[in-house]
Structures are given as C-alpha cells and as structure tokens.
C-alpha cells in the first residue's frame, strides 16, 4: 500500500449546535484521485475546507504528509484549492492570476514568466496570459484556477465542485482532462462533488458522506456493485428496491422471499445494511442486471419472471422499461414498478407499453439490505 498523504482522525466540526462533521476517519493515499461524494449539506465541503485550513476543527487531527496541521494556517499548508466559483482575481490578467502565488518564489522574472506560460499550456490556455480575467468563459476560468494552483506544485490539489457550473458537454470534457492532468502531474487530487456519475468517472476511490459521516469508502466499482447501505445504493446510480421476507438463515447464507422474484438464497457478500427508517428487509438490483426477453427468446440465466410493461422511455442508445412484476404486491399489497435498462441493438425491436413479457435474471446480481 502506498503512503498516506492525508489522514483525518476523529475529526468533528460544530457550528454552534450544528454537528457538521461527526467523527471522520479517513486516509487518502499519495497520488490518488479521491472524491468526497454526498448530497448538499452532508459535510463534504466542510471536510475539504478543513483540509485546506479554512475551517478550524472542533476535535480530532488532520495530518498532511505525516504532519499535524493543527497549528498550520491555510497559507502555510501544502495544499491548493480550485474554488467552486473559481475565485479568479478580477483586477488581474490571466498571467497575473496564475503568477499570484509566485511572489516569494526566488526564481528570476523570466523564469517565473516561463513557468506561467508552461502552466497555461498544460491547461490548454497557451497565449491567453495577457487577457483580462473577466473576459473569460466559465471553462477558461476553471482552467486558470487549475493553472494557478498547479504552478505551486502542491502536495494536494483540492477541488470544490469544480465542474458544477459548466454545461454538460464541457463538464464531460473537463472530467477527462482532469483525469489526464492528474496522471500527468501525479499530485493527490481531492474532489468534492454531489454528482455521483462524476465521482464514478473520475475517482480512484470515493468516500460517500451523509450527515457528517462517511457511509462507505470504496473504489467506484465496489461502490456501485456492493453498496454498504441502502442509502448509498439509492444515492449512487439507479437501484430498484423490492420488499423481502427472511425465511431462514445459516452461517453463511440467508434465504429470502422477494416480492415478484420468489425465493432466493444469498451469500454473505451480497448482504448490506438497511436504513434505520426502512420498514423491513429489501432486495435491490441495478436496472442493467436483468434482461428483458423478446417473444420466444432463450437465455442462459438461472431465473425467469413474468412482467407487464408499464412505461417505455427511449434514449437512443438505451431504452428504459418500467415493469410490473407479477406478484410484486404479494408481500405488502403495494404495486412497485421496477426499472430495467436495455442497450438497443440493431434488429431488436423496442417493446411496447402493455406488452406481457419475461425477465431473465440471476440471484448473483441481487443485494439484500437488512
């Protein structure tokens, strides 16, 4: 395992009576692209600002590169930040903005100018140095903010929802550029985002936060396939939930009766925690893990279930079907639609609303939340 760049140990933060961070324990490895993901108000930005030194912590320790940051003010920390609003100085040119942090740099003026030009080239703004900062577009501002931070060669680059103000195309482009940039410079990136897709695309590891606590810390694939709690499952991607009843338990497996899907036996690794306010156990599965069968189609999946198509949403590359599983209301009397996504393949027709159809699936794709 690589060394720890940032370590938070038992970090608490109170704003008056409000408990914003509730005992954060976290290790971020050197050189990794780490994301703090959660809905607004979950404390992710507070945690980032705590690392940057803009917020005092009420309790606990923050270490950066092995050094306790307790008495280190923001301007002395080996971190630099890309602010949500980019915080580009409006009274300076692009080059002056990028060179802002170089005041005490002992290099000559010419060397600094070369470094600025190099940093601008790295973010794709070569030749923009003389422009006035307020003549820039949102995407360009963000690049300036990146260049301004990276020119100082920080140990950690902190990014506070840097892409939230950009339009979709630009955002996707910047995601790829940020990943490439991170690989190129090898600096530890810590990204704060509320966009689960963005976190999945960009990160090596993700900490999902709810209400000031880390609910799960994992790589993107593990987070998507094996969410630790039902809340994480609900927050990341789309997941269908069906009520379940536990029939029997053995040392390593649980057998449940699932509304609409029948009896399944699940091993330990497919079992996660339910939410405190859940009524009872639930079974979850992702829309793409089940296959909608056309008339007469065969399949190699172990299980098959009959269903009726309630709604069809066509996306071009994908089609989403909202289905009613036969017997879905058996357990609690409520009809629950489930959403299945199918990649559209040439020669396979999109099925119509009202059609009786069949679903092929495997118990291996189910997660039990209890």
């Amino acid at each position: 395992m690589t060394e720890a760049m940032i370590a938070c140990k038992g970090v608490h933060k109170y704003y008056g009576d409000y408990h914003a961070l509730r005992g954060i324990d976290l290790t971020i490895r050197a050189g990794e692209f780490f994301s703090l993901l959660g809905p607004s108000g979950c404390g992710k930005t507070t945690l980032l600002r705590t690392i940057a030194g803009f917020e005092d912590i009420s309790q606990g320790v923050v270490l950066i590169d092995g050094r306790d940051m307790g008495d280190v003010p923001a301007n002395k920390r080996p971190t630099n930040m890309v602010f949500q609003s980019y915080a580009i100085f409006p009274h300076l040119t692009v080059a002056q903005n990028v060179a802002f942090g170089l005041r005490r740099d002992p290099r000559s003026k010419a060397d600094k100018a070369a470094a600025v030009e190099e940093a601008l080239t790295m973010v794709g703004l070569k030749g923009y140095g003389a422009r006035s900062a307020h003549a820039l577009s949102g995407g360009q501002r963000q690049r300036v903010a990146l260049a301004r931070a990276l020119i100082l060669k920080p140990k950690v680059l902190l990014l506070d929802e840097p892409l939230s103000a950009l339009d979709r195309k630009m955002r996707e482009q910047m995601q790829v550029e940020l990943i490439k940039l991170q690989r190129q410079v090898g600096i530890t990136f810590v990204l704060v985002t509320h966009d689960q897709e963005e976190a999945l695309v960009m990160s090596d590891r993700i900490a999902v936060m709810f209400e000031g606590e880390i609910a799960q810390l994992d790589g993107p694939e593990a987070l998507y396939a094996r969410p630790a709690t039902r809340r994480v499952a609900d927050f990341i991607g789309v997941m269908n939930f069906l009520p379940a009843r536990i029939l029997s338990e053995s040392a390593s497996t649980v057998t449940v009766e699932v509304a609409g899907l029948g009896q399944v036996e699940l091993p330990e690794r497919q079992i996660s925690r339910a939410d405190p306010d859940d009524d009872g156990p639930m079974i979850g599965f992702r829309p793409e893990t089940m296959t909608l069968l056309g008339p007469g189609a065969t399949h190699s999946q172990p299980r098959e279930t009959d269903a009726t198509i309630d709604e069809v949403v066509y996306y071009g590359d994908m089609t989403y079907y909202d289905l009613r599983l036969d017997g879905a209301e058996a357990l609690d009397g409520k009809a629950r639609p489930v959403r299945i996504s199918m990649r559209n393949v040439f020669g396979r027709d999109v099925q119509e609303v009202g059609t009786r159809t069949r679903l092929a699936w495997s118990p291996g794709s189910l997660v039990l939340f209890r």
Partner: protein
Amino acid sequence: MAKFDAEARAGLSLIAPPFLYAALILAAPILTILAYSFLTDGYLEIIGDFTWANYAQVFTDPIVRTVMLRSLMVAAIVTLATVLTAFPIAYYVSFMVRPERKAMWLFLITIPFWTSYLIRVFLWKVILGYNGVVNSSLTGLGIIDEPLTFILYNVNAIVMTLAHAYAPFAILPIFVALEKIDRSLLEAGRDLGESRAMTFWRVTLPLAMPGVIAATLIVFIPTIGDYVTPEVIGGGKIPMIANLIQVQMLALDNRPLGSALAVTAMVIVALVSLLFLFLNRRFLKVRQ
C-alpha cells in the same frame, strides 16, 4: 438634419421633463454666475459691459491665491483624513459585523445626518473650544495646565470638524465596494500562500479602490467649497474660498468678482477631480 423616428421621439419626450428640471435648477444658476463674472461692477449696481477684469483680479490678487491654496490644502487633508478613518470602519462593518446586523450599523453611521450640519459644527466648537469639553476635561484632570491651542480656531479644528461631518460619505461607498468582493477571492489569496495582511494588500485593497476613489471625490468636492465650518470653527480668521466668495457677493456687493471667484473655484475643482480620475485609471488600473 435627420428626422427623429418614433423611438427617438418617445425617448426624447421621456427625458424632456428631467432635462428641463436639470436645466432650470442646475444650468440656469451656473450660466447666470458665468454671465455675471464677465460684467463690470459699479457702485451698488452691475454695469452690463463685458470685461476680463474680474478674472485678471482673481488670478493676480495674492489674497485670492492664499485662500485658494488653503482651500485646496484643507480639502486635501480632510479627504485624506476622512478616507483613512472611513476605510477601517467600512472594513469592519463589511467583514466583521454579522450580516443581519449590517443594516443597523449603517443606520447608526448615518445618524449624525439627523442633526443640522450647522448644529454639528457648533457642537464641535463646544468640544474643541478654549473652555470646551476637551480642554476643561484635560485641565480638570490635571493632564495639562494651559488649554490646548492647536485645536482652536485653526486649520486643525477645521479638518477635524469636516472629517467628522463627511465620514458617512466616505464610509458608504467604501462599504459598498468591500461588500461586492467575493469572499472566496480572499480565501484564494490565503490558499495561494499569502498572509492575511498581504491578501488585504494584493486583493482586498485593489478591489476596494473604486469605492475609495468615489469616497475621495465625494469628500473632496464639497469640502473645498465648505462655508460654515471655516466661518464657525475657524472663527472667521482663516477663510476658505467659499468665505471669500460670500464676502464679495454680499458684504462688498461685488457680484462680478464673486462670480469670477466661484467660476474659477469650480474649474479648479473640476480639473483636480479629472486629474485624480486620470491618475487612478493610469496607475491603479481600476477595472470592475
């Protein structure tokens, strides 16, 4: 001449009432003064002969020069003192006061306006005078034996009084400029390695400059022509340009010379203001 289209006519008819109003209350008196300044003074009457004599006198008379220079100097010192004391107050209200209390602070700052300017000036006389609050307190406490004279009937007293009177005019524009500064810019300054003091110097101050310039002009322009304070606080012994104009206009009944003085003062103020604006554009690169 091109014919006005419907839109232009609508626009003109919209601005016509304020334009007329401005012409009546602004342009008419100024033009009257301008006209007077080229007329000849007779005994108790004005003779309608064109003359440059008034301006010749304004530019050659050593008294006028002394008073004009004094006015400029007093206005400059007052402006400096006012802006320098207003900045920390504006900064405090903008950065330290909780948002929900800011309105109350601004309200308190403007409270002196509730009192007549004349009364405030007289009160300063009560505070600064020979047997005033400051002197009697200090002598009573045994700190000084003789009343302080450097705050009596002189330029210092005028500067103090004017700086207090115009403080809100300086605080408010600086406050507005500070309020407009995105707070994340200050965090960015710190994040990029600068201390609070350097962040203030490199970020806050440049971004507050439009407010500082506005404050400077707002204080400088009226103080140079202030009449009441030199009259009351200065005891009439150290006249400024407005007092000289008053003497010519009313006491000596020489309206043409008074008008020439007024026009000259106006032009000088305008030139100084323009020079100031120009220097700021040139060297401080104030852009927002």
